């Protein structure tokens, strides 16, 4: 189910942090490359970018070389650095 791209990114980030916390690790930097299904829609008088990542083997076409790909790098910042 496609949702706002920002929601997908937030869920990925939360999942990463939770997984790391469960393993007793602190992540400093993560890079991921994801096949991504993208759709632009008209909403609230503007344009919104919806997205989702493959969730099961039924989504195999998304994994093909023909799919769009989002490469994203996350980095942990202390709050002071984040506002600088």
């Amino acid at each position, binding site marked *: 189910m496609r949702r*706002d791209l920002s929601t997908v*990114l*937030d869920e990925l980030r939360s999942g990463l942090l939770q997984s790391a916390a469960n393993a007793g690790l602190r992540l400093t930097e993560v890079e991921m490359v994801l096949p991504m299904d993208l759709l632009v829609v008209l909403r609230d008088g*503007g344009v919104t970018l919806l997205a989702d990542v493959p969730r099961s083997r039924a989504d195999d076409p998304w994994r093909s070389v*023909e799919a*769009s*790909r989002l*490469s994203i790098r*996350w980095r942990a910042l202390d*709050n002071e650095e984040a506002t600088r």
Partner: protein
Amino acid sequence: MSAMLPPLMRDNGMQFDLFIQALTEQLDKAQATMALKARVGKLPLTFAVKDVQLDLRAFVQFVEDDLFVRPAAPGESEASTIKLSLTTITKSMIEENSVGISTEDPKFSLREALGDDFDEDRRRLERIGVHTVKQLNELRESAGADVIERLARLPVNRLQQALMRAAAPRASQVHNTHPSGTARPHDDAQIRIHSPLLRVGGRLPLVQVAGEAVPVVEAGDGQVLLRPLASQMGLDAKIDFGDGRVAQVALCDGARGRWLNGAGA
């Protein structure tokens, strides 16, 4: 493509610049959410997006002069690939490259000046970086109304209406007190008239109620302070800007003026 899209978007996709706007809006929103969560949770660390690269598989075509892209659905082959790379910028870089919106007088924000009737037009202007009446007027003077219309995708008549609405004078009552701490008596009430057309160094506007001049206390950029007679309070004042533009506004708190000769823009 979704059935919620109009036929042009289903067939040809979206103008490329609108796609970029949608992408950056989503990234900004994601970044803001992360910062907010770190603040609310009082976390010492926040996890920020450092770099983003999107290999967009899409069908690309020109419709008239606009470049349209339609993202390929899963399994659709023979699409083109557009590589977009974005990186984060620091707070100081943002400040160097943006107008300090927070320092602008909220009375001259587009939202306040245009009202709800122009919600869609305001959003279109904000997408090209115009957030205040002052910015709108400066852009019109430097680039011209036709450039604004083209960039913001506004119809001609809507921009003219928006400009007139934004520049119309508005009145607010001054609620200050005497040094003794007592409220200002009614016969000493002051009314401030706001309009982006009022400039320091320019000619003072002639303000009249029923042919009688209204005393001007002081004038500054974007405003003039009046001390109307008690008998003039609440009545319609005619404001002659001296350059052919004449507006009318009631001398009472919160009154919004209108142009008498349609020359406001």
